[in-house]
C-alpha cells in the first residue's frame, strides 16, 4: 500500500496497543483470551466504496496478527483510494468480551490514546466522534457497539466531512 504522507500502519499499531492491556477502563484479559491471537475481520465486512473512494482491505502486519493480551478480537485495516492514491485509511477493531467497551471511561481512555492527546469531541450522526487535527491528516475515532472505528483522512482530500458522515452511516456486513 502506498501512503504518501500518512502513517496508517503506525495508527493501526497504536490502536492495538490501546486495545491491549494498557487501558485502565477494561477488565484484564483472561488467560484464555491472552492466548488468543487477533483475527482479521472477514472480507465483505465493509462496503466496496465510501463516497467517491474505493475501499480495499489491506493485510494486517504480522506483529498485529501475533499480538496477545489484547482487547481486540478482530481487526480490519482498509485503504480508501481514489484511483490509486490513498486518500484515507479506516481501521475497525472488534472488541472481545474482556473489554468493557460500553463503559464511558473505557471509551474515553481509548479515544485519548488513539488520538495521542485530548481530542475534540463532536456529535455527528448520533455518534460521539473524537477528532484530532494533525499535520497532513485528520483522525476521527468513534464507537459503534463493540466496534471501534478510526478514520484517517489526508488533509488535501476535497470531501473529508462527507467521507466521515458516510463512514458513520455505514452498515457493517
Amino acid at each position, binding site marked *: 500500500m502506498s501512503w504518501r504522507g500518512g502513517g496508517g500502519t503506525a495508527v493501526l499499531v497504536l490502536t492495538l496497543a490501546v486495545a491491549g492491556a494498557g487501558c485502565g477502563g477494561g477488565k484484564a484479559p483472561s488467560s484464555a483470551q491472552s492466548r488468543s491471537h487477533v483475527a482479521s475481520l472477514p472480507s465483505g465486512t465493509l462496503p466496496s466504496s465510501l463516497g467517491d473512494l474505493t475501499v480495499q482491505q489491506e493485510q494486517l502486519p504480522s506483529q498485529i496478527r501475533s499480538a496477545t493480551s489484547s482487547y481486540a478480537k478482530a481487526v480490519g485495516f482498509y485503504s480508501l483510494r481514489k484511483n490509486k492514491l490513498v486518500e484515507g485509511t479506516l481501521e475497525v477493531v472488534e472488541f472481545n468480551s474482556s473489554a468493557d467497551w460500553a463503559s464511558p471511561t473505557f471509551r474515553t481512555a481509548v479515544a485519548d490514546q488513539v488520538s495521542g492527546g485530548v481530542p475534540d469531541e*463532536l*456529535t*455527528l*450522526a448520533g455518534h*460521539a466522534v473524537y477528532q484530532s487535527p494533525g499535520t497532513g491528516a485528520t483522525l476521527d475515532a468513534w464507537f459503534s457497539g463493540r466496534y471501534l472505528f478510526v478514520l484517517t483522512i489526508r*488533509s*488535501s482530500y*476535497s*470531501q*473529508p*466531512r*462527507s467521507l*466521515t*458522515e458516510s463512514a458513520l452511516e455505514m452498515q457493517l456486513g
Partner: protein
Amino acid sequence: MTSTRSSFRARRRGLRVSAALVACIGASSLLTACQSNDADYRLIQSDLTRTAGAPKQFVWVRQTLAGTHSVSGIYQDPYRYDVLYSQGDQSAWEEVVKDDAVADRFLDANAVVSFFQSGGQQGQPPTSPSGATAALTGQGTPNTAVAALLARHWVLDPGGAPQLPSVGQELQAEKTDPFYASLIFLTDIGKLVEAAPSPQVRRWHKDDVQPVYKPAYDPFPPPGPGVERYDVFQQPLPVLTSNSPGATPAPPTLSNLVKIAIYVKGSYVVQIREVVDPIDHLQDLVNNYHLSLPKHLSRQGEEQFAQQVLDRLSRGQTGPPITIGQTIWQATGIGSPQQVSLPTDFVQANLSVLPGRGSKASST
C-alpha cells in the same frame, strides 16, 4: 456551691453539646450545600454539552447599544446546519452547510456589508450598491459569486464549507462570521461557567436567602412550569494589589460583568439569558480606575459612558470583548431529528469571497 458548680458544669456541658450540635449541623449543612452546588455545576456542564451536540431549532438574539442582530436556524450537527442572520427585523444572510458543501444567499447585501465593515457589530450600511460590491470584492468588479449574491441568488460551493477557526482566532471569527457566535454560544457559556467563582452555579429558588443575584439586580424572569433556572456567579471586580501597574487594578473582564441564567427542562438547556450590564458596578469602576463620571447622565448616557470606559480599559486585552447588552438563546425540538437540505436552485461558484469559506479555504 457544689450545686452551683454542678449546675455550671451542666450548663457548660450543655453549651458544649449545643456547640457541637450546631457545629455538626453547620458542617453538615455546609457539606450538603457544597455537594448540592457541586452537583448543580456538574449537571449544568453536562446539560450544556448534551444540548450543544443535540439536533435542534434555535434562535440567538443579541441586543447591544448599536442595535439588534439575530441568528435563527436548524442545527443537525456541526457539519449540517441551516441558519439565517438578521439585523433588526430585516433578514440579511442565509447559509446552509451540509458536510463539505456550503450555500449562501444574501437577502440584504447592504446589511451584510455593514456587518463586515463594523467588525461584527451592526453598523451603517454602504450608501450605494457599488459600495457593497467594492466591500465584498476589494475592487469594483464582481466575480461570479459576488454578482450572484448581490442578485439575491443562492450560491453553492461544493467544497467550501466554513472551517473552524484555528486556536486563538475565535474572537476574530466572531467579527467576520455572523453565524459563528450563535453556533458556539453554548460552548462559550460553558467556559464562563467554568471560570465563575466556586460554586459556579446555584439553582434559583423564589425567596432564596442567598440568591446569586439580589432581586433588585436580577434581570432575569423566573422559570416557567417544568423548567429549572440556574444562575452563574460573577467574578468580583479586580482589586488593587501590590503588583498592579499604575496604581490601578487589572482591567475588568467579561466574567466580572456578565450575568447568566440557564434554563433547563429535563436534561436539556432550553434557554440562556446573558446580560452585560456594568451599571451596578459603575461607581466601583469610577473609583477603581480614577475616572470622572459626568453628572446628570440618563440611563442610556450611563451605558454609553460605561461602554467607552470598558472599550478603553480592555484595549490590548486578549479576552472576549465586553459589550453592554443582552443575548438570549433558546431552542426547541432538542434531540428530535432535524434534516438540513441544500437549495436546489443555485449558481455554483467559489465562495472564497466570504471569510473562512470557499474551496480554497477548505483545503488549507
